[in-house]
């Protein structure tokens, strides 16, 4: 079982593309590519020809006013929805329309906006569900290969514990997840996602309804993880937060990509200003 | 999926034509089956209205519903027997009240039918409805309401307990005989000639159509024209919203049980009147068919329940044209399973309006 240390730290010289479609052609440097994504519900076009690329080891924010299509795009990437047309490519593989578990299996893992902890299970159990391809998940092995399964369980237990320590919630290890406070659940959500050994994490409004102290703590952890080599795509409402923390920002409006680039670039972009001030909530 | 279903439909239709043309199946026979199916369908639909409404408003599948039907039937027929046979020096009140338990009194001997003993029948009808209303209110108040917040599955399990308790109490009191409530052939009817044979139509067929149709019409007016009906539709659509807008939900819930219970009791009574026999298991045997009808029509939709009832009744009855009679009811279940797999929200997508 590889630990998070094994994820390769991104090449410091990698070109962090600043505008849409600026090359960054090497698949290894650009794990996620979205092209011409389109999704309609009934008569409403929620996502209209959206496309962008995410560089490895980067922290990118996806923002936009309500109804911009952020969530739908998010869900199309993670397999919850199947887009009407368009391509989602991860590490060079076309993953459009794959089921959620298949997407997660390839290293593209999401969290949920309202933290969905497995409430009748303890925090540790929650964590230990996460690692993929566990030996003991085979029905046969769980009954007949107890020794092998136990060995791996011990490894998983250790990894789980360490991750809990990283988030400073190891004192809750044996607590029922349902008894956790909202903030603790958010931390658990992220910790659990980490244990799947992902390449890239898609965070769905992780800061929604979060108090400033917790927000800071979450950000600290996310930055640290990014320094370890994880790639983040964060969908958020809170524009300032994204501007202050992400090196690249993608702005959506009415289903389309309005613009993308560095925070300064986006901040000064007239279309963006209009979109946010022009009548939307 | 739809392509497959259409294909199957076409195959069945072609086979039907084949049977009619070769004389394997008489047109009159087919019409007889269709009539039979529609009659059953009316009963299923009538009983299904109540189930559909409570399923939608209270969010649980009430497995005791079948036994409400049985309870209504027994109570109503007890009264009918008493009135039909209870006057006279040698009337055996006890066994009349128990609807001839132990084979002591025979319905046929009492000559019960709607023209012969109209008072007995009408009184039984009314009592069936009223008792079932009482039963429904009682079980809701003391058994379902206290745990309403527990969720659909605990309520479902509880309703199974209610079903057991009710059914075996009825069995204990009325024992296990199947009674003949009307003597075969004693009900006036006609046998109109249709092409190659006759289709038997009895007065009780007509009466069933009258009662069921009338009640369904009544429910229609209730839903569309009265404030209560509007409130019920609103609650069925979205309960939290209904609460916020000030609809008195407890009253609506109670009304749902009353209407549903009344219709169910009458359906039970009419079913027995129509088929001429009464047994402690009658309601339970109908239950799955009623679920099939409600699911097909869309949970929460009254019109769906009616239409679903007719379709399921027809399916169960006419299935014998294509498959051996032992599997006729299985055909209706297969329809239900298909609906759940292909379009779980049913035909009318759970709306109380058409």
């Amino acid at each position, binding site marked *: 079982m590889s630990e998070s240390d094994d994820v390769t730290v991104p090449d410091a010289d990698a070109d962090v593309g600043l505008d849409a479609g600026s090359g960054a052609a090497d698949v290894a440097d650009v794990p996620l590519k979205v092209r011409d994504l389109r999704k309609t519900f009934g008569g409403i076009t929620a996502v209209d020809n959206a496309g962008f690329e995410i560089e490895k080891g980067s922290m990118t924010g996806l923002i936009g006013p309500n109804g911009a299509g952020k969530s739908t795009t998010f869900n199309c990437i993670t397999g919850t929805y199947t887009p009407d047309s368009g391509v989602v490519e991860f590490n060079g593989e076309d993953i459009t329309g794959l089921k959620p578990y298949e997407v997660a299996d390839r290293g593209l893992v999401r969290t949920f906006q309202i933290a969905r902890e497995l409430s009748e299970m303890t925090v540790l159990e929650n964590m230990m569900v996460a690692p993929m391809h566990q030996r003991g998940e085979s029905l046969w092995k769980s009954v007949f290969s107890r020794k092998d399964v136990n060995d791996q*369980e011990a490894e998983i237990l250790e990894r789980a514990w360490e991750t809990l320590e990283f988030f400073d919630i190891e004192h809750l290890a044996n607590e029922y997840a349902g008894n956790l406070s909202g903030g603790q659940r958010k931390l658990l959500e992220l910790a659990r996602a980490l244990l799947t050994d992902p390449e890239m994490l898609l965070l769905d409004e992780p800061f929604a309804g979060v108090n400033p102290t917790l927000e800071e703590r979450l950000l600290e952890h996310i930055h640290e993880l990014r320094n370890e080599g994880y790639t983040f795509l964060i969908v958020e409402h809170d524009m300032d937060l994204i501007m202050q923390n992400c090196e690249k920002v993608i702005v959506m409006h009415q289903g389309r990509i309005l613009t993308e680039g560095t925070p300064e670039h986006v901040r000064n972009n007239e279309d963006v200003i209009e979109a946010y001030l022009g009548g939307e909530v | 999926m739809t392509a497959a279903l259409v294909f199957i439909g076409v195959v069945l239709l072609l086979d039907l034509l084949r049977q009619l043309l070769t004389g394997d199946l008489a047109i009159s026979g087919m019409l007889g089956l269709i009539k039979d199916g529609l009659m059953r369908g009316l009963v299923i639909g009538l009983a299904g209205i109540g189930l559909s409404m409570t399923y939608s408003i209270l969010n649980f599948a009430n497995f005791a519903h079948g036994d409400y039907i049985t309870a209504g039937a027994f109570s109503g027929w007890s009264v009918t027997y008493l009135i039909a046979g209870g006057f006279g020096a040698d009337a055996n009140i006890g066994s009349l009240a128990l609807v001839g338990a132990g084979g002591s009194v025979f319905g046929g001997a009492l000559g019960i039918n709607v023209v012969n003993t109209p008072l007995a029948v009408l009184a039984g009808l009314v009592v069936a409805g009223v008792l079932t209303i009482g039963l429904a209110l009682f079980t809701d108040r003391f058994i379902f309401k206290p745990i309403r917040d527990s969720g659909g599955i605990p309520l479902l399990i509880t309703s*199974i*307990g209610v079903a057991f308790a009710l059914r075996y109490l009825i069995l*204990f009191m009325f024992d296990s005989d199947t009674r003949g409530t009307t003597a075969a052939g004693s009900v006036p009817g006609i046998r109109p000639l249709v092409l190659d044979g006759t289709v038997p139509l009895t007065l009780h067929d007509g009466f069933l159509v009258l009662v069921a149709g009338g009640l369904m019409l009544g429910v229609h007016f209730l839903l569309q024209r009265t404030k209560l009906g509007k409130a019920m539709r609103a609650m069925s659509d979205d309960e939290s919203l209904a609460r916020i807008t000030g609809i008195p939900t407890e009253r609506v819930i109670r009304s749902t049980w009353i209407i549903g219970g009344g219709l169910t009791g009458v359906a039970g009574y009419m079913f027995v009147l129509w088929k001429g026999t009464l047994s402690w298991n009658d309601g339970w045997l109908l239950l799955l068919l009623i679920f099939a009808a409600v699911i097909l029509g869309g949970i929460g939709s009254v019109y769906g329940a009616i239409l679903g009832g007719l379709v399921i009744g027809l399916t169960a009855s006419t299935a014998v044209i294509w498959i051996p009679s032992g599997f006729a009811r299985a055909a209706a279940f297969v329809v239900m399973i298909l609906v759940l797999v292909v379009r779980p929200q049913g035909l009318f997508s759970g709306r109380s309006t058409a």
Partner: protein
Amino acid sequence: MSDSDGEPGSYGQSEEEERAVVLGIDFGNDSNMLITLLVGVFAIYLIGGVVIGLPFRGLMNQIGQLSFWIAVFAMSALALNLHWGYTGLFNIGIVGFMATGVYITGVLSKPVFGAGTSAAEVGGFGLPLLVGIAGGMLAAALLGLIAALPALRLRADYLAIVTIALSEIVRFSLLSDTLSGTDIGGYRVGLGGGDGLILDYGDPLEVFVRTASVPFDLVFGQSGWLWEEVYLGVIVEAVSGPIPTNPKPVVDNFAYAFVLLLVLGGFYVLITRIGSSPFGRVLKSIREDEDVTNALGKNTNVFKIKSFMVGCALMGLIGILWFGTQGSVTPNTFRPRITFYIWIALIIGGAGSNTGSVMGGAIFAAFLFQGPRYFKNVVETVLGNPSAPSSFGQAMLPISQGDVFPMLLYVLDSIRQLQLFLMGVVLIWLMHRRPDGLLGHRKEAASSIPLTRPAKNSEVATDGGEDQ
């Protein structure tokens, strides 16, 4: 860092919840609890019978029966716990899988139809019983697969309706004339229709003992040593002392119940292993939140199907063990009523707990299933077997004259119906007062090792460890 001395065995519940505490009594551990329960139940039956003066043979029969029912309902509750307690699959079609198990075993193992069997009967394929049993379990598992493929993605109450519809379809199929007899590859086989199937494949008990005897046979150079020498020669012989007339059926009762208790032990080990493992953990996770489980990369459909199929195979086996020794089997035995017995047993014990399932099965068998019948037996013996009124009406009449006795007799006589009424009431009461049953509140760790704090290994790099 928070305290570094890990508490051994701590699991996140109050200490009391974690231990084997039931009704306020602390038993120390699960085995003690189970043994106490069983001993207590048997004691009640024995004492009751002895005090009343039941003849020895009758009493022994009752105890043998009790053991049988305890085993059967405990096993059934365990299998259902896998479906519902672990995976959240609301299966109320249990009886259909039981029927499939026993019928297919019958078809496979009945002697081949030939001269000597009457024209109305059908025969079987004449395979050895153990092969037939394996086949029956496989058939039940396959039926489970067929049901699962379309239905597993349905929400719980819809799945419930589908499973019960399926069990009724099974019953219709067993009743049908079409499937009652046909020719397959030269064998005349069938399901027997409304008449049912005669299970003339020999005595399962004898088959089991003879199979167990194989190692001994090699040693002693005799076929069926365990059966001939030990069972018949020693055990039945010994019992013919206190029970001189025809002791074998009484011993058979006990012996078979003993076999079932062994199988129950096997069930318990199997299901506990499945549950306390990563596989079981995923099942629990699916029950909690299937979307999250998918988002973590698990193919939930495959897990659900596996769990369902294993449970159904076990239910098939129970059907075989329960109905396979009664000489014949008819379709109308397999009504949904039996499914609901098992649900009641599971709820009494507490869904989610394996020990609870066993306890629930035992309590159901002893007090709700056989208990009332035993009670009737006992009281009737005391009263000298009086005749009861033949109907409710007849029992009611004397009440107007102040005589309640006939009604009491009628109630006693109708215990078989009233116990079902009682079951309904008990179920309602449980859902109101103790929906978690005896042990459902106790969360059993879905992990194959105890979840204690791992020893701090200083070589393992922490991921940018934070200071407290």
